[in-house]
């Protein structure tokens, strides 16, 4: 009857109180500028990181991110979960490095994030070196192999392969996490596919829209999304996707107004609600993963809020994008 998640989930349950409550969001939204917002944040979990009083928000968020990941690694006995969270950063680093190598970036190399579970040097050598490729996770090494076989690829091709790799990595590692969490991932893939379709349609290159540019693993097939988009019945199609029903009017609105702000907001709202619901499966790793996702989302929203406040954006405009308050 040993269950490795009881202690971590108990702790995460208590840590969730560190997430900013709705009232704090309200106060943050009505803050006059970023200085006032930083003063409000000083009383929260973020107050423990140095740099807040100087408004050095990037440092604060980096430290906060590192702290959450540290917590995750200490708590989780589920290697797949840790891998799933940290490999996302490796996938991004792989993109920066491989794209620079294949498409000719600047001389002093691309900017990199700090490594997740794979060292920068290993990633850098993986394109040319078959031995190094063997040390990478399956999805990454497959992508590296595919990339190294291409001759003179365009950035767009490289990106397409890397997009698929990143989504594959995520799905591989997280799918072992029980049905609730799998549903969340599938919904996220669905929403990404819908957004991708809209982005391609709006960029005016309909011929680029093919099932190949979309991600596998959603609740609806790639072909179906693609077909609906080409037929122009995307809003109706979205209305039939489980969990995304609510997005239908916003899809329609985005297609006509070309502004993604509200669609992004609603998508994030759907995912936030699913995260809140999923966090009650107490005997698996899902609450832990949900907690990390929530924290990342919160930081992302704080970044947006602080940037908007620093630029003096008014509250009405901000609340078109921010699914808080």
């Amino acid at each position, binding site marked *: 009857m040993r269950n490795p998640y009881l202690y971590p989930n108990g702790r995460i349950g208590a840590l969730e109180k560190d997430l900013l409550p709705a009232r704090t969001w309200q106060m943050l939204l009505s803050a006059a500028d970023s200085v006032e917002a930083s003063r409000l944040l000083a009383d929260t979990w973020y107050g423990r990181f140095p740099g807040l009083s100087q408004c050095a928000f990037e440092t604060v968020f980096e430290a906060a991110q590192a702290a959450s990941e540290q917590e995750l690694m200490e708590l989780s006995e589920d290697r797949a979960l840790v891998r799933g969270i940290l490999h996302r950063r490796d996938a991004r680093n792989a993109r920066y490095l491989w794209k620079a190598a294949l498409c000719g970036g600047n001389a002093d190399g691309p900017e990199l994030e700090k490594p997740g579970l794979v060292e920068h040097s290993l990633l850098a050598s993986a394109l040319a070196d078959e031995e190094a490729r063997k040390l990478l996770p399956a999805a990454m090494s497959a992508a590296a192999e595919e990339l190294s076989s291409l001759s003179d690829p365009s950035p767009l091709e490289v990106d397409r392969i890397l*997009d698929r790799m990143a989504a594959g990595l995520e799905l591989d590692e997280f799918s072992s996490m029980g049905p609730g969490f799998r549903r969340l991932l599938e919904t996220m893939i669905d929403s990404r596919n819908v957004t991708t379709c809209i982005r391609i349609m709006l960029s005016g*290159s309909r011929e680029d829209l093919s099932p190949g540019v979309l991600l596998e693993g959603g609740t609806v097939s790639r072909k179906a999304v693609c077909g609906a988009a080409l037929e122009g019945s995307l809003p109706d199609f979205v209305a039939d996707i489980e969990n995304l029903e609510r997005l239908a009017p916003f899809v329609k609105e985005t297609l006509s107004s070309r*502004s993604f702000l509200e669609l992004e907001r609603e998508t994030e709202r759907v995912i936030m609600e699913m995260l809140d619901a999923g966090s009650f499966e107490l005997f698996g790793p899902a609450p832990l993963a949900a907690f990390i996702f929530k924290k990342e989302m919160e930081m992302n929203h704080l970044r947006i809020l602080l940037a908007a406040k620093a630029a003096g954006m008014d509250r009405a405009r901000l609340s078109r994008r921010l699914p808080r308050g």
Partner: protein
Amino acid sequence: MAVVVRATRMELQTLRKRSVLARRGHKLLKDKLDELMRQFKILIAEYMGARQKIEGELLEAYREFLFARASMRREALADALRYPGAVAVVHGSTRKVMNLTLPEFDVSMEGSIRNYGMLDTTPELDASLEVFARVLPGIVRLAGQEKAIGILAAEIDRTRRRVNALEYILIPELEEAVSRIRLKLEEIERGNLTRLMKVKKMAERKREGTLL
């Protein structure tokens, strides 16, 4: 007083001619100035309208970009924008307004502006880049207009100085010289006349004396 001349009939003739010429030049220059001003006003109106429109669009794009920047990782944003997919070529040409050569720029773009993956980038980035790309030809055209306005303004300045020089210095001076010469010549005329009358009287008196 600058025009110092000998008071001769020949000088008077030349000065008169110069004065007429100066008047005609003044009129021509004045017409040119008016036309330049008209062109200048047209250009300014065009420029202000275009500029306001572009500024409005840019403001909107920057706001959109702000969201994109805040919700993307710094490295991911740098990566997405490092490999431009579109090539913009600026074409320069000229057009003639009066005798001036004014520059005209135009820009043509090829390729897709969006040249990055979909996974780590936000759609707001698409939207802001789209606006930036749409505004770019306008900005380049604006640069041409701005230069043209500068050239036109310099020309107006020069022409106005010439007009003023003619109107307030050269023409008055010539006229003054002409009138001075005329006065002088009249004086001489009168002197000659009196002298002739005197001589005539003397001659008459002499004849009467001999007759008497």
